[in-house]
C-alpha cells in the first residue's frame, strides 16, 4: 500500500517535471502577521513590482546581519526600484513574541510574517537560513540564494534592477 502511494507521488513528480513551462508561483500556506491576523502566502503582492522574500530567525546571526545590512539601504532601494522586502521569521513559540520588539528596536521597515511551525519554509524548500527569494511582478519565483556574506546584498539589488529592466535572470 505504502509503495503504491509513494509510486503515485513519484509519477506525479515525473509528469510535473515535464510539464514545467512557466515560473513557479508562491505556495498557498497560512502564516501570521505581527497583528495576529492570518494570511495566505499565495496572495502576497506588491502591486506588480518585485518582492524579496527572506527567511530568517532571531537565533540566526547571518540572517540578522543580512537584514541589518539591507536595512541601512532599504529606503533607497524602495525609492529606486519599488521593491518590497518581506522578512519571514521561522522563530517558533519560544521567540516569536520577540520578533516585533526586535524588528522595531532595530528600525527595520520590512513587512514581517511569522511562520511559527515552518509550514511556509517547508513549502518553499528552505533547508538553511538565511534563504532569500526574488519574486517578479507576476508572483513568480525567479531567483533564490542561501547564506549571506557582506556584499551579497549588492547582487540581490542588481537582480531586482535587472527584473525591472525586463532582463532575463539566471
Amino acid at each position, binding site marked *: 500500500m505504502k509503495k503504491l502511494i509513494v509510486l503515485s507521488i513519484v509519477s506525479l513528480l515525473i509528469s510535473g517535471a515535464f510539464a514545467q513551462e512557466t515560473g513557479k508561483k508562491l505556495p498557498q500556506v497560512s502564516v501570521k502577521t505581527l497583528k495576529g491576523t492570518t494570511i495566505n502566502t499565495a496572495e502576497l503582492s506588491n502591486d506588480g513590482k518585485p518582492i524579496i522574500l527572506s527567511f530568517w530567525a532571531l537565533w540566526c546571526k547571518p540572517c540578522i546581519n543580512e537584514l541589518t545590512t539591507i536595512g541601512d539601504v532599504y529606503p533607497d532601494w524602495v525609492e529606486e526600484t519599488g521593491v518590497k522586502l518581506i522578512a519571514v521569521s521561522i522563530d517558533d513559540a519560544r521567540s516569536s513574541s520577540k520578533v516585533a520588539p*526586535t524588528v522595531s*528596536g532595530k528600525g527595520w521597515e520590512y513587512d514581517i510574517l511569522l511562520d511559527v511551525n515552518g509550514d511556509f519554509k517547508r513549502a518553499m524548500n528552505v*533547508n*538553511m537560513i538565511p534563504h532569500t527569494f526574488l519574486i517578479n511582478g507576476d508572483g513568480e519565483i525567479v531567483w533564490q540564494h*542561501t547564506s549571506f*556574506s557582506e556584499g551579497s546584498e549588492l547582487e540581490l539589488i542588481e537582480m531586482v534592477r535587472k527584473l525591472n529592466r525586463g532582463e532575463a535572470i539566471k
Partner: protein
Amino acid sequence: MRHIQQGAIVFFMFFCFIYLPEVQAQGFLDGGKVSGNFQLDAQIYQADSAIGANEVAEKMLMNSFANLLYTQGNFSAGLRFETYLNPLQGYDPLYKGSGVPYWFGAWRNEQFEITVGHFYEQFGSGMVLRAYEERNLGFDNAFEGAKVVFKPIDAITLKGLIGKQRYFWEKGPGLVRGIDGDLSINDLFKPELNLKTRLTLGGSFVSKYESAEDIIVNDTSLLHLPENVSSWAARANINRGGFNIYGEYTRKINDPSSFNKFIYKDGESLLVQTSYATKGLGVMASAKRTDNMSFKSKRTETGSTLDINYLPALTRQHAYSLSAMYPYATQPNGEMAIQGQVNYKIPRGSKIGGKYGTDIAVNFSRVTSIEKEVAEGESAIGVSGTKGYTSQFFAFGDELYFQDLNIEVQRKFNQKYKVLLSYIFMKYNIDVIENHPGEPLVEAHILIADMTYRYDSKNALKLELQHMSTKQDKGNWVQYMMEYTIAPRWFFNFSDQYNYGNDNKEDRFHYPTIAMGYTQGSNRLSVSYGKQRKGILCVGGVCRTVPAASGLTVTITSSF
C-alpha cells in the same frame, strides 16, 4: 489478498507511466510544478582520545535527505527520501537505514483544506499539540493520518486531525486526536469598521489513546493506567497598534508516565506574552508556569521523541559558540519562568547614535522550580502511583534552574566598519538541566566582540573574539574566529576554542577548525576539518547533544 495488492501496484504503475502523460496532454494536470531540496552531511572521523572522540568503526558516516514537492493549483503532493548510512555521531542509531518516511497528498478550496499521509501542525503556541521537524537535529514527530482544516466563514478556522507519530522508521503506539478552533472577533462582527483593536480567541482539545499495559511501581503495586488522556487549551490575543498581549492556558488530565515517574496529578501550563513596538523601540515581557506537562504518545518514552506538545522555553537563544554552551530547555515536570527584553535604536545621525544609529538590546530571564507540597494522605513528594504533590499556582520554587542577563550593542561606524559587543551573565543549573547530580550551579560571565571590515563591495573580514570566565564546570574558555568572505560565493574560516582555564591541566584542549564554502544561488557546498567539542547543539528551539568529534565534514545543500 497479497496477489490483489501486487496486481494493484502493477496496474497503478501501468497507469502512471503509460496513461498519465495522455491525461496530462488533455489538460488534467496542466501547469503542475515540481520543486524540491536536498541535503547531505558526511563526516570522516578520526579517533582523538584526548578530547574524548571515539573510534568510529565505519570511518565515515552520512545523513542525507531529499524533499520533492508537486503542486498544481489547489492540489499538492510530496515525499521525502531519507538515508542514514550510517547515522552521524550524535544522531540516534535507530535512524540507521533508508526509506520514504514522509509523503502526503493535499487539496484545498476556499473553505476546506484536506491532507492525508504525513503532516505537521501546531495548535496555539504548541503547548497541547505541535508536530514539527528539525532535520539538522534529527527531530521529527510528524503525524501519519489525516487532517482537515475548515473555514466556514472568514472569522473562523477549525482544524481536526488524527494520527500516530513518527518514531524513527516506525510509529509510536499512541493514537492522537485533536481539534482546534480560532475565532477572529473583529471579522465576525464588524470587519468593515477596521477597528484598531483586534481580538482573537482560540481553543484546542487533544486526546491520546494508548492501550493499558502492566507497569509495576514501588516493587509491588500494579498501576491502573488511563487509556485515554485528554488535554485542552484556551487562548486569546489582543492587538492594538504596536501593543500585543497573548495568553494561553493548558490543562491535561492524569497521565502517569516514565517522564513524571508515574504520578496521577493533572498537568497545567500558563503562558502570557506581552509586547510593545514602536519605531526605534521594542519592549517584551513574558511569564510562564509549567507543571507536569510532558505529553507523549508513548507513556514509557523518556527521550526527545513522540512529543505531542511543545513547551517553549522563555529564555534567549544565543547564537555565539560560548554563549550557547549552556542552553536552557523547558523542564516539563515543572518550572516558573519570566523574561523581559528591551530593544532600542539610538537614532541615526544623533550625537551618541552616530551616522547609522546604534542598536541596543537588553534581555533578562529567570527560571526556577515550582513550589511542591506533600499531597493529602501521602508521605512524600512525587511517589509513583499517587497524586504526586500539590503546588500553589503562583508560587516560585526555591531552586534556580537558569538565569541570564545579556546586553548587546551593535554599531556601524562607516561604510567599512561595524562592531557588535555583548556581555552575558548566566547561571545554569547543570545538575537539573544536564542531569549531573551534585555538580554546583555554573555562574559564567561571557564577553563577545564581533567586528566586520569591508574592503570593498565583495571582500570582507570578520573577526570574532569570545571569552567565558567561570569557576565551575570546565573553567574558562576563549574562542577566536576569523572569516574572510568574497561575496556572494566564497567563505574561508578559521577558529579555535581553547579551554585554558580547566582545573585539570591535561584537559586544557584546543578545538581548532578550518572551513571553507562555496555558494551558487541556492546550492551550497561547505567543507570543514577540525575538532568539535562535546556539547549541546541547538537549532531553532530544539537541542541535541553532540559527542566530541574530530575529522572532516562535508555539507551539501540544494533547493530548486
